Every structure is written in C-alpha cells, then in structure tokens.
C-alpha cells in the first residue's frame, strides 16, 4: 500500500483561491505540473462536482479531488493544495475546506493501493489540521509518508 511520489511541483502551500472551483483548478494544475495529467483532467475534476455536488469533501476540511481514469491521465499521481483561507464547497457537514488532495489514476485496479494508503494516513484525525498548517513541501510529505 503505497502512495505515488509527491514532488515539489505537485504541492501548493497556503495558496489563495476565491472559491471551490479555483481551489480544484489549483489542485489540477499541480497534477499537470508534476507530469501526472494533461490539462483536460482539471476540467473533468470540476465537472464531477458540478454534476454530483460536493461529495468529494469526505472529511471535515478535506476534499479529495479526482475524476475517472482517462487519456488525460499520463501516470498515477497525487497533488496537495493547502489554502491560506478555507473555501466553502457546499457540503452539509465538512465545510469549509482547507486541504485538497488531487488524485489521478490510470485504472481502477491501480487505484486500490493508493486509496488504501490514503485511508491509512487520514484515519488519523490529526493529519488534516496538521496538513493545513504545514509550512513547506517536506512537512506535507512527512505527514503523508511519501517521497518527492
């Protein structure tokens, strides 16, 4: 159960976003910057939320931005965006969001390992506030237990 690497290019610390859409776009831009996706993936992550609502806000303060596998996923990838000011997604319980994790997978089989690893990390309830306050990329990687 391992997470994909998280290079500096895939991490955005204390970013500014006007709304949830801008925050998800930052998350997608980080995935693209790190080489995991082409730009089209960002639009598909936004589209999932437009279609189904804020269900990707799966814990207080945390959004797991993702879309289905597709040709715009170049390799499995992870991105992390922390926000200087939390944004509201419209979730009945878990707003506002201060940490976004972006996930791109090439197949649903492949993603099983990443997902189990993510669950291991976030089942510790101290991790989300710690990520929100992380001062730099190294601190984010240490909290997630990933390499650059």
């Amino acid at each position, binding site marked *: 159960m391992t997470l994909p690497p998280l290079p500096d290019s895939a991490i955005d610390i204390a970013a500014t976003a006007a709304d949830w859409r801008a925050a998800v776009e930052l998350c997608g831009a980080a995935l693209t910057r790190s080489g995991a996706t082409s730009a089209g993936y960002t639009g598909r992550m936004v589209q999932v939320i437009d279609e189904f609502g804020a*269900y990707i806000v*799966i814990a207080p303060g945390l959004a797991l931005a993702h879309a289905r596998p597709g040709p715009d996923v170049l390799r499995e990838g992870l991105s992390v965006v922390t926000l200087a000011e939390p944004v509201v997604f419209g979730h009945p*319980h878990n707003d506002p969001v201060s940490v976004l994790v972006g996930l791109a*997978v090439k197949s649903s089989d492949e993603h*099983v390992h990443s997902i189990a690893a993510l669950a291991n990390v976030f089942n510790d309830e101290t991790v989300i506030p710690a990520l929100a306050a992380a001062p730099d990329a190294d601190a984010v990687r240490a909290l997630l237990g990933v390499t650059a």
Partner: protein
Amino acid sequence: MKIVAICGAGVGTSGILKVNAERALGRLDIDADVTASDVAGVAVAAADAQVILTSPELVAHIGKTNADVVVINNYFDLEEITQKLDTALG
C-alpha cells in the same frame, strides 16, 4: 451479504469508503462483500445489495432501491462507519 459504496466517479472517494467499510466490518466481525461503484451504475451494482454507503450529497442521485442507504459524513471516521453499519446490519 453485499454492500456497495458509491461515489460520482466510481474511483477515489468510493474506494476510501470501501476500504474503511471493510475495516469497520472487521471490527464488527461481520463477513460481507464490499464493492465500489459510481452513481450511474448503482442500480445494477446494488440490485442485490443490503446496504448502500454514500455521502449526504449523493443520496438524491441514487434513485429507487431496496437497499438501506447509509450516509457517511466523515469517510475517515471508523467510529462513525462502524456504528452506522452496526445499526443497519444489526
């Protein structure tokens, strides 16, 4: 027994829910088959399921079903998932 975890895309969040539901079932010592599906496939995936696990945001998308719809607020809160599954299955 069959349990279906659903999300909009069928990967990602439903996968988290599947993994943590399996952990909760382990705590409860209940043997069940947990699968992940997307909203579009829920009618087929949940046709013979006893429980559908999902987010409050997705309930309205599920449509008619004979399964118990169990809403999870915090996908990483094993206490919440365990307690709600215990209620639904107990």
